[in-house]
């Protein structure tokens, strides 16, 4: 576990790179055209998951902007500018596979990052292995993705198992039993419920479990069932848009159970759609608390807010880190084009990202910290877990 001291002694990603890259940039003749490295991006920009796709893309764009504004990055004495080749996969496995194939063989990018949907990532991963191009996932959460023995696949973000681990302990500790669920009927929702099922200790009773399809907005059936089963707490596994709607309907229906949510529900955007009283002490796991009093997070959040005029988002932070991890691997490998060398470097990488230290385990799965935050009555959040990063209202 990372300590506060370690974090403060380490420079933040942006500062480190800026310092690293700025010098040669000034040293070399400024007029000279620098070489550009193009990374491949697969993400959903249209279709049902366009909204989370936008956060992911914002994170990538922000990283490129930060690097290029700092004058590029240096690998093996050469300075490079960064560019992205983005393909929209619409959360569709066939389009994802095509995009991956195109990036690997037509655009011949050294590394591909991104993806939102687990099944699409599962279609992209074997192509990454076939053509020897590392694929760095920054959002999909299905645990089995990194369990296929594919050494070209990396995942920066915590998977469902990791996300739920802390929350399950927290739920058990608070005695929120029985615990009911309302979850998206897709990979994120069903995966989340199954994850919790495995992780919750026996003394936490499973209440009602309800799934709804993406695009459904009427939660009344779930609410009636939950009321009927008499649940202590309700866990919502969905994005912020349906999440806000679900909470409004839960409260409008006069149900005052404890709410438990995902990282999508720990943002101010979320509050814009609701009143703090609706949330009433809702707790959620979070891979990235945007207001945490941690310098690297503060810095990123400020950067994000300046660029997009809204509170930063975990998907953006994970994706932002993804780019920096890849750049770091290129620097460690001393190449911007040799995908195999970059892959080997990635496997050994140790990078202090916005979301925390990123190191890949034997399955190429990173293990960044997972937080639990809680809404305060004044509409801010606090960090409850991990204990060493706990912070009060206003810093979640």
């Amino acid at each position, binding site marked *: 576990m990372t300590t506060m001291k370690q974090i403060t002694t380490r420079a933040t990603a942006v500062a480190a790179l800026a310092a690293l890259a700025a010098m040669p940039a000034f040293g070399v003749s400024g007029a000279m055209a620098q070489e550009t490295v193009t990374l491949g991006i697969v993400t959903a920009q249209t279709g049902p998951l366009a*909204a989370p796709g936008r956060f992911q893309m914002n994170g990538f764009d922000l990283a490129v902007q930060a690097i290029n504004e700092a004058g590029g990055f240096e690998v093996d004495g050469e300075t490079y500018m960064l560019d992205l080749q983005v393909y929209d996969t619409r959360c569709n496995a066939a389009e994802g596979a095509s995009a991956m194939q195109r990036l690997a063989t037509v655009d011949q990018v050294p590394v591909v990052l991104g993806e939102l949907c687990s099944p699409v990532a599962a279609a992209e991963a074997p192509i990454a292995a076939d053509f020897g191009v590392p694929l760095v996932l920054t959002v999909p959460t299905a645990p089995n993705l990194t369990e296929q023995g594919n050494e070209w696949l990396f995942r920066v973000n915590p998977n469902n198992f990791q996300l739920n681990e802390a929350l399950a302990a927290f739920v058990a500790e608070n005695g929120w039993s029985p615990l009911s669920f309302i979850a998206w009927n897709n990979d994120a929702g069903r995966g989340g419920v199954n994850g919790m099922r495995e992780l919750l200790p026996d003394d936490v009773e499973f209440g009602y479990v309800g799934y709804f*399809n993406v695009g459904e907005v009427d939660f009344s*059936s779930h609410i009636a069932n939950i009321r009927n089963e008499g649940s202590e707490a309700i866990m919502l596994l969905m994005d912020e848009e349906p999440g806000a*709607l679900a909470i409004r309907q839960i409260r409008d229906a006069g149900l005052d159970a404890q709410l438990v949510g995902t990282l999508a529900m720990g943002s101010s955007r979320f509050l814009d759609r609701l009143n703090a009283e609706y949330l009433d002490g809702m707790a959620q796991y979070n891979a990235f608390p945007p207001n945490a009093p941690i310098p690297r997070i503060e810095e990123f959040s400020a950067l994000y807010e300046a660029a997009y005029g809204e509170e930063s988002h975990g998907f953006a932070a994970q994706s932002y880190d993804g780019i920096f991890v890849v750049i770091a691997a290129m620097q460690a490998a001393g190449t911007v084009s040799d995908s195999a060398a970059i892959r080997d470097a990635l496997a050994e990488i140790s990078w202090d990202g916005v979301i925390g230290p990123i190191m890949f385990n034997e399955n190429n799965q990173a293990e960044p910290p997972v937080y639990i935050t809680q809404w305060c009555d004044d509409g801010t959040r606090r960090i409850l877990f991990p204990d060493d990063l706990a912070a009060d209202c206003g810093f979640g």
Partner: protein
Amino acid sequence: MAQALLEQIINGTMMGSIYMLVALGMVLIYGVMHVLNFAHGVLFMVGGYVCHFFFTQVLDSYLLAILGSMAVLSVIGLALERGVFRRLRDNLRMQVIASLGLILVIQNGVIAIWGPNALQMRITTTDIRVPIGELSFTLQHFLIIGTVGVTVTAIWLFLTRTRIGTALRATSQNAEAAQVVGIDANRMYVASFLIGCALAALGGALLGPLFLIFPTMGDLPLLKGLAAIIIGGMGSIPGAIIGGLGIGIVEAVSTLYIPTDFRDTVVFAALIAVLLLRPQGLFGVRVRGEA
């Protein structure tokens, strides 16, 4: 359980009212024109958007915004009838395909104009809670049920008590006979599309504030409306009304006994079962010829 049952009956009645509007519009168009319009759901959705537009940008009155939305959708309906469906009469396959194409056009047109994210529309009636014992609903729930009740009654009176309404019903029951009696079929087509689209707009405008206004908001009402007109008996107006309401209530109550992720499966399995046991639908009487 009794309480949950009551809760689901009220919720089901509310959603059933919405399905009823969609089904009623579709059955009018189907009965009169023999057109199965799969684009009815996106018209419902556009109704929500137009209402939002009028409410936030122009009128600041929910009632006027609803009426404005119904007017705009009537015009769109007229254009679709004239421009597309009238030309494809008697060609079932091409009608279906044209209506699928229209879904593409309209849904993505809305995304291009308003963006993919949902719009919120807060009005007084969604913020007022009506407690019933331990249960609680928004006033909008009852506004929807009441408005639909009044509208459907009005439509029924129109169809049974006015000249043009009677003509519409006559055309719906037997186009040839209607022509013999001297009813202008083209005027009937226009009337059915006007009313059908206005009803869709009303549905979207009523449901939008309660939930959200977003590009796929009409998909489920369309599917449930389709199920309603089949279960009710294609071409049967009372069948569509009772079918819509029935589906709303049955699917709501069924979730107390069956996992919610199989809720739509229940509705569609019921649809298939009805078709097998009573192909003319629960309220259908005649078997129409092929189109």
